[in-house]
């Protein structure tokens, strides 16, 4: 009996099982505490939609063999840059969203190409270098936000040069524009159908891409580089393509995230955004070398569900201390560490 339970847990994966169990306990506690469950579910759905694409960005990178994209800020900064340029021209509403998405794809293709080249140069230590590429680009853009002469008064400080720390979407008529699209309330639960459709569309696109010849080749190269090389696949090129896609997804992801949040967070906002996304896909059952769309869906629901539920429950249990954030730090990094112990080492070093 215990053995079969153990087997079941192993098949689901320890992180998935543990986080799922914790979420269940928290939801029950929330019910006992008399928290409004429909409100909680509304919040969870909303946050799943906001974070979904950032987590989805992990899939191409992992499949290509470069490991989880710890350099998510590269794409995020590309997306923010596109957003800022479009805001500078005072675009608003849907036009702002679509123009910034288009520009984002262009910018992120360039950034992703450079980043992919870098990843090919540092094979074997991708995750470490990726993390520092992410940090470096955030620091670089900090200088950039301050030094580039954006002139739209809605974006600048009251005094002096440079952009504000957070830029309101409200001023551009685009706050929660996708989040509130086709939002239907059923039994007190607000279901953001528009947001879910967007997320589903991108999931489908990524899935579809990996059914294509290039997609299959990327996957093959990630699973067994030597074998793929021997069968004449250009692995380096494929890795670059995968990282371009990952970077674009991160860029689009931050635009969707920011509109849902109502603010674009500049400066050090994106600095640590990669880690929750990496943790989420791992919670969904992915490893550093294997990931799929279901992993993303399960992971983002469990992880964001846990984060959303933890805050009100913990606050009621232990008033005054922000234990939910501490729990996030411990779970997020614990999950990543667990995944790292499962990485097969590529050599001596």
């Amino acid at each position: 009996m215990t053995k079969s339970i153990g087997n079941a847990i192993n098949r689901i994966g320890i992180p998935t099982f543990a986080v799922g169990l914790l979420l269940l306990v928290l939801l029950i506690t929330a019910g006992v505490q008399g928290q409004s469950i429909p409100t909680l579910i509304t919040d969870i759905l909303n946050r799943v939609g906001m974070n979904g694409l950032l987590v989805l960005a992990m899939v191409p990178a992992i499949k290509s063999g470069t490991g989880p994209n710890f350099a998510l800020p590269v794409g995020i900064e590309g997306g923010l840059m596109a957003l800022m340029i479009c805001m500078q021209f005072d675009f608003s509403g849907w036009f702002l969203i679509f123009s910034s998405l288009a520009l984002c794809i262009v910018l992120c293709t360039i950034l992703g190409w450079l980043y992919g080249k870098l990843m090919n140069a540092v094979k074997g230590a991708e995750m470490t270098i990726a993390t520092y590429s992410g940090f470096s680009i955030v620091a670089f853009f900090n200088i950039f936000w301050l030094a580039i002469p954006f002139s739209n008064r809605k974006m600048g400080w009251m005094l002096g040069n440079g952009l504000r720390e957070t830029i309101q979407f409200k001023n551009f008529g685009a706050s929660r524009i996708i989040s509130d699209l086709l939002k239907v309330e059923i039994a007190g639960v607000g279901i953001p159908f528009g947001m879910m459709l967007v997320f589903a569309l991108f999931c489908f696109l990524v899935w579809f891409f990996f059914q294509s010849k290039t997609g299959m080749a990327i996957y093959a190269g990630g699973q067994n580089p030597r074998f793929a090389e021997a069968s004449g696949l250009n692995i380096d090129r494929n890795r670059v393509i995968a990282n371009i896609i990952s970077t674009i997804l991160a860029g689009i992801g931050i635009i969707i995230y920011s509109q849902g949040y109502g603010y674009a967070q500049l400066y050090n906002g994106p600095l640590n955004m990669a880690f929750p996304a990496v943790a989420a896909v791992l919670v969904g059952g992915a490893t550093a070398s294997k990931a799929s769309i279901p992993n993303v869906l399960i992971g983002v629901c469990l992880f964001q569900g846990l984060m959303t539920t933890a805050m009100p429950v913990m606050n009621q249990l232990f008033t005054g201390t922000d234990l939910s954030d501490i729990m996030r730090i411990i779970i997020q990094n614990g999950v990543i560490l667990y995944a790292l112990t499962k990485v097969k080492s590529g050599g001596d070093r």
Partner: protein
Amino acid sequence: MNNWIAKVTGQPSFDLKTWILDHIVTILFWAFIILGLLTAQNLTMDGFFTELCNRFYRNIFLILSLIIPVVAGLGLNFGIVVGAIAGQLAVIAVRYWGIAANEQHFGGLTGFIMMIIISLPIAVLIGWLTGTLYNKTKGQEMIASLIVGYFGNGVYQFIVLFVIGAVIPVAMAHPMILYDGVGIRMSVDMGSVTYSLDDLFEIPFVPFMIGAAAVILLFLLWNQFIRKPKADGRTTKLNVIAFTVYALLSAAVMVYFIIQLVTGSVLNRVRDVPVILILVVVLLAVFIQWIMNTKLGQDFRSCGMNQAIAEANGINVNRTRVIATIISTVLAAWGMVIYLQNMGTLNTYTAHNNVGYFSVAAILVGGASVDKATIGQSITGCLLFHAMFILSPEIGKAVFGQAALGEYFRTFMVYGVIGLSLGLYVWRANKRAQLKMPGEGESEELKDQRLIAG
């Protein structure tokens, strides 16, 4: 030119391009610092040196804690953050008792020594845990050590914000405890422990520099003319040109500071040198050198060269790596205690966060890499890195008219330095591996490594 440099450095062949690539980070920093010193307007010489010395005394111990894991092949241990956390836990405990006793007990140097003692078992335990983890994440130690730092931060926050007070009983009215009796406040005053090590014995800056230069000069002379060759026949003598350069340099420093002393220049206003702290650092350096020559040190090096061969030579690789991590963690804990006695306050929730990045960036600026780090590199790195830190707001102001820009710039330098050095290292290692045809050339290297390992 190239021949001349080859003679000084003692390397048989010298290639300027390779040399620049090898030292790119150090060169960039020198250029930046010179630019800073030229452009800074509101900076006095004595102010600059006081700040630089202060930062040096504070950080050098932490930076030295990175050396042993590098030698043992673990790479740059960003996980010294958890070591710093161990130090902070000890600091919190001792300060709690110290304040409760109105500084009558556990204050001053006694408090400092208590912190050192209490942090030891905590750091050993944490070091053992992280070392075990690094053994399970072989090949990915650096990213693992980074995440260990974050993870440790979470656990630490849980302890100081919740466990203290909710599980460990504390006095509710104690000034270190938050209003509701659970958790430690944002900052902890070091009270009488502040400067307890620094203040023990101090010498003015200029005479100290004269003395230090004299000691180095005497050492050089002794090493060159009196010291006998080592038992295994290896000589420690420098070649003639290198010796002349070093000797003239230290003599010049000595003369320069004598002139400063006589003319009574602004440099005489630089902060006094805490001699005991310097002695502690020298002791640590001697300890590191000594351990490298013991059997354990040989094992560290063998593991760093090639784990498979080390294992084949009967070395317990995993155990050796755990020991290296424990030493590093303990040194980081002590380094943090020394740092805090100099700072005067502990920012409970943030003090440890940047310890890993800053220390690693500093040692890399000194010219260290993933598989090579020395005491000399730590010292030059510490000085260069912190000079950059002091100067970058000045440069931001002078060049761009905004001090904030300088501050962002220095964050960029921290991450950029780490990314650039690590990237270049891996890139070069990969290129070497590609150049070597499988089976060819490899055997010779293996033979070398076997010799070293055996």
